[in-house]
């Protein structure tokens, strides 16, 4: 699983990426690198191009120019068939879960396994139950349909599906958006625990400052289509850039910062 990787090898390399929607410039020369085994967060205000970058990395959208390498392989311009080996090695959790409404939670989790492995149905059901338990869902959630779950449980179910194939790389889009503080902090811990147990590399997009302080190893801060700063939260909080400072030292930023100090 992880033993072949050299420490600090780059899992995702984005180089000089440009994206435009008509006249609107979304990315204006974005470059970043995500290292093996780290939790890398992409932060920034709403509409700054974070989610678009995520969608470009996972091949749902195409940039105008630039290069994106995942596991050392260029992904820009790959077709669905060429992308399959990559997709089997990463899991994606969407902001609103994107669980299939016609399937139960266990069926949702089992779907990638049914599609991509030759395991027997009974084993797939058992593995799905294991994943459901790993993400901290109660056992009773397995036979339920997504519509019957609360928002927090739906996020956990989405995470269970994202890790169904034991990916090496996990993408999380706004994992704590729409969760109450208690569920959100539960989710922080869950992400950390899974990363350690499964040896995952995690790329997450968020504007939740608490999540950034608590789980991210490194954070890239995006402003108006450019990366304004990369580093640990402590490095970023000392940044001289006015926009970054504003983000961290606004009233909410201060609160999250003080919290993280109290914990220490």
């Amino acid at each position: 699983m992880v033993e072949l990787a050299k420490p600090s090898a780059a899992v995702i390399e984005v180089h000089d990426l440009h994206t435009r929607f008509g006249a609107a410039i979304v990315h204006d020369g974005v470059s970043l690198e995500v290292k093996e085994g780290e939790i890398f967060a992409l932060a920034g205000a709403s509409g700054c191009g974070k989610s678009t970058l995520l969608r470009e990395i996972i091949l749902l959208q195409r940039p105008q120019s630039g290069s994106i390498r995942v596991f050392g392989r260029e992904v820009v311009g790959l077709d669905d068939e060429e992308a399959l080996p990559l997709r089997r090695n990463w899991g994606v959790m969407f902001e609103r879960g994107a669980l299939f409404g016609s399937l139960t939670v266990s069926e949702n989790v089992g779907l990638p396994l049914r599609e991509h492995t030759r395991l027997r149905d009974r084993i797939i059901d058992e593995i799905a139950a294991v994943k459901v338990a790993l993400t901290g869902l109660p056992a009773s959630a397995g036979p339920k349909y997504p519509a019957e779950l609360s928002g927090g449980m739906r996020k956990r179910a989405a995470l269970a599906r994202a890790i169904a194939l034991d990916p090496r790389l996990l993408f999380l889009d706004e994992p704590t958006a729409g969760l109450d503080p208690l569920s959100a902090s539960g989710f922080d811990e869950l992400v950390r625990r899974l990363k350690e147990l499964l040896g995952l590399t995690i790329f997450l997009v968020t504007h939740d400052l608490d999540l950034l302080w608590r789980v991210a190893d490194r954070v890239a801060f995006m402003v108006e289509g450019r990366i304004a700063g990369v580093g640990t939260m402590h490095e970023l909080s000392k940044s001289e850039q006015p926009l970054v400072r504003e983000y961290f030292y606004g009233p909410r930023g201060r609160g999250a910062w003080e919290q993280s100090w109290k914990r220490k």
Partner: protein
Amino acid sequence: MSLRSLSASEVDADFELAHDTVRCIGSWTVGRIAGLERRLDHTTWPRGAEVVFDGSAVTAMDTAGAWLLRRALRTLERSGQRVALRGLRAEYEALFAMIGSPDVEVALATTVSTPPLLERVGAFAWHGGQQGMKMLSFVGEVAIAAARCAARPTRIRWRPILYNVRTAGFDALPITGLLCFLMGIVIAYQGATQLQRYGANIFVADLVGLAMLRELSPLLTAIIVAGRSGSAYAAQIGTMKVTEEIDALRTVGIVPIELLVLPKIVALAIALPLLTVYADVLGVSGGMLMARTELAVNHTVFLDRLQHALRLSDYLVGIGKAPVFAGIIAVVGCFQGFQVAGDAESVGRRTTVSVVQSIFLVIVADALFSVVFNYLGI
């Protein structure tokens, strides 16, 4: 970390049995354990003091592989055999321990079994009965809202009524006209061969006139409107339900039925009879065209005969059914819209159900009308 290095150096998961030691080898990962669980199940395990699983040759392990190993150990333990696991790497050991946590056991115990046939039949019948009751109570709610509006006419919402008359009525003119014109042609054409045989060409006017005015125009129009508008009602209300817009209406003090259901019923009750008249005209025109080309009955003769063949009651019977069909279509469409629960998939299902149910009920109602009219001699 590249893809190739990860996959090429891995070998399929396997195990070797020697005395009372099971040596696990290879990569116990999700892509490399297919078939292994079957072999694990069918192995005759040694009966010794203790069976030892040696994990030192496992090159990789993920949750799926860890589960498979845990499963094999569990099966042995349950049969009363003592087992031990040794030599697993520390990180896999942690994974293995996590797989064996009590949470996982509880989750595994919660497997769903399909209920027996009798229970499913019962549940189906119960569900059907409940739907019927819900429909009945919906009709009641609509009636109460209608009575309230009738008592206070200022509450009637004219704009949505007019809007719905346009979308359900006016916008449906081309398709309804075309289909009924074609239907008139088909009936005259089918009748032509039979009538010619007896030299009764002129009776084509009776055939087309009675068939279109009494039965086919109202029925065809209702079916088209059910497909066009009934489904749209279900989808619109269903989507509003999913996005909580219905609840939002309630919170700002608007009764959803007054805004969303009553105008649709009223609009369809106006539009459907008008559409039926239009369909009558187009249907008879189709028949007339065919009568001239196939049976040499020209338009003047045809129209003259039509006046003798049709009574006013034939025309009114057809038009009179239309408001009833309108009520069925609008109520079923709106009811199914309100039955949407949860997600987008439910909107799709309810929309389909609304079309099937309203067409079914329209035809049943039409059959009842036939019986009643026959009894009354109209």
